[in-house]
């Protein structure tokens, strides 16, 4: 069959003289990439001004330079780093447990809509209950232990993972399922070749909110469930003795941890669910 396309234009096409003579566009510095820095710099400047002007007492808000120095020193030494790592470990452990149980369960529930409808209320109810409200309950079950902090964080994250995975499967594009069916795929093949993949994108949305939720609960648990380690413990400890520099440094460390986890998960998501949004 002849191709309907017109092949290659004549070698040197005529161009209007103006185009040839056009001067090169003036070079401009590209400031666009620096824009995300504007916010933090502005915040630090305001912070510094407020402290210098004495609007807020130094005992409540230390100058930014001191705080950042405390943060850096702390993260390089024993003051913050071990606590940072303990919090990270608890968060990852809780998240790992939540994912390992929640993802398969969510996908299984999603592929059987009747099963999902029967437990939907329970999942929705506990998903809507602030997990921190359950801390006393978990205290009764697990006592004041390390397991407790991980368990309650895992519980909160688990519900989010189950919910998102189940909805991912339920809302899978009907046409892709139809396409597989018409090609003669069995129910199991439809599940592993279509439903599972379709659910990945909403599942990752769930995983990202789950990791944030895990960090929140772990830090809260470290604050209020007798604890010798972790950023939450460090924050409360520093506050009790009015060591504000350490307190702010620990808060910033927690912020950095949360932000880094989110960025990491976005990167993993883009890599695995490469078709997302296209």
């Amino acid at each position, binding site marked *: 069959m002849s191709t*309907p396309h017109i092949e290659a234009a004549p070698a040197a096409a005529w161009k209007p003289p103006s185009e040839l003579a056009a001067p090169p566009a003036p070079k401009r510095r590209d400031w666009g990439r620096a824009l995300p820095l504007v916010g933090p710099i502005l915040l630090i400047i305001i912070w510094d001004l407020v402290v210098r002007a004495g609007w807020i007492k130094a005992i409540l808000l230390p100058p930014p330079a001191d705080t950042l120095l405390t943060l850096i020193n702390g993260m390089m030494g024993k003051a913050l780093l071990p606590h940072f790592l303990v919090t990270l470990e608890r968060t990852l452990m809780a998240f790992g447990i939540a994912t390992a149980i929640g993802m398969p369960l969510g996908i299984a529930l999603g592929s059987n809509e009747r099963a999902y409808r029967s437990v939907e209320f329970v999942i929705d109810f506990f998903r809507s209950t602030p997990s921190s409200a359950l801390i006393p309950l978990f205290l009764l079950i697990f006592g004041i232990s390390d397991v407790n902090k991980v368990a309650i964080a895992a519980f909160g994250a688990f519900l989010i993972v189950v919910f998102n995975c189940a909805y991912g499967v339920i809302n899978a594009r009907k*046409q*892709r399922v*139809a*396409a597989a069916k*018409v*090609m003669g795929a069995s129910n199991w*093949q439809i599940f592993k070749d279509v439903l599972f993949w379709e659910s990945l994108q909403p599942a990752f949305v769930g995983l990202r909110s789950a990791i944030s939720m895990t960090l929140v609960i772990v830090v809260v648990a470290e604050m209020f469930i007798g604890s010798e380690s972790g950023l939450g413990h460090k924050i409360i400890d520093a506050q009790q003795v009015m060591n504000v520099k350490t307190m702010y440094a620990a808060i910033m460390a927690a912020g950095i941890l949360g932000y880094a986890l989110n960025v990491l998960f976005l990167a993993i998501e883009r890599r695995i669910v490469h*078709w997302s949004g*296209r």
Partner: protein
Amino acid sequence: MSEVINGPVYADVPRPAFRPGVAGTHITLRGLTKYFAGWPLYENLDLDIPKHKITSIFGPNGCGKSTLINMIAGLVPIDSGEILFDGKSLKDTTIGYVFQNYREALFPWMRTIDNIAYPLKLAGHSKAEVDRRMEELVASFDVKFDLRRYPYELSGGQQQTASIMRALAPKPEVLFLDEPFSALDFEMTLFIREKLQEVFIQTGTTMMLVSHDLEEAVYLADQVLLLTKRPTTVAEILQYDDPRPRTVATLTEPNFVATKKRSLEVFQREVRR
């Protein structure tokens, strides 16, 4: 006493004896009934779809053109009736289906080539067999784009070409096409329409095409199946037998013009009814 005193007062209506289609029939529909929300869409429809022919389906909006091929392809359950392919059930028949919305028909997590090979993997063919068939398909479609890319990296026309290749990969006995050109631009529509004609000349695969473009429906067809409004029945079946390959010149042939004119008359009569 062996007599049943209060036996059932109703009796099951015996199924009518199966009436085979006319010679050259591929798909026989007998007593096909489908209700939508309590309203009949099809009631007791009998239909013979010829083998090695292209049947275009045309009719008023909402008369269930797509539903008809979806029922035959097993995507929409039927309320009652029987559909046989050369006397076999759907389970024992290899079919291909090309959707209107190629974006939601291909699997974006597989490379395009794996999408096309997917039905062969389902059928349990070996790697060597799959590779051989892929080579055949690529050659016969004269593919100019990179099949190792993911579907979302291709243009709409390329994606629909890949969809058609996927549908044809297992050498289906019947190919269903549900408005396969509606989401494409004009240039791509012409290109894929020609590809389809070429495939048909090569393989003679029985095809059922739903189209909303009458010219296209007639251009590709051996017979045009015109449907009525709901409850849907067959308004008329027009035979159109100009030789293939048909070209732009075909569009002005008296036979083509007459068939198109007749189709339009029937269509308008049915819409006004």
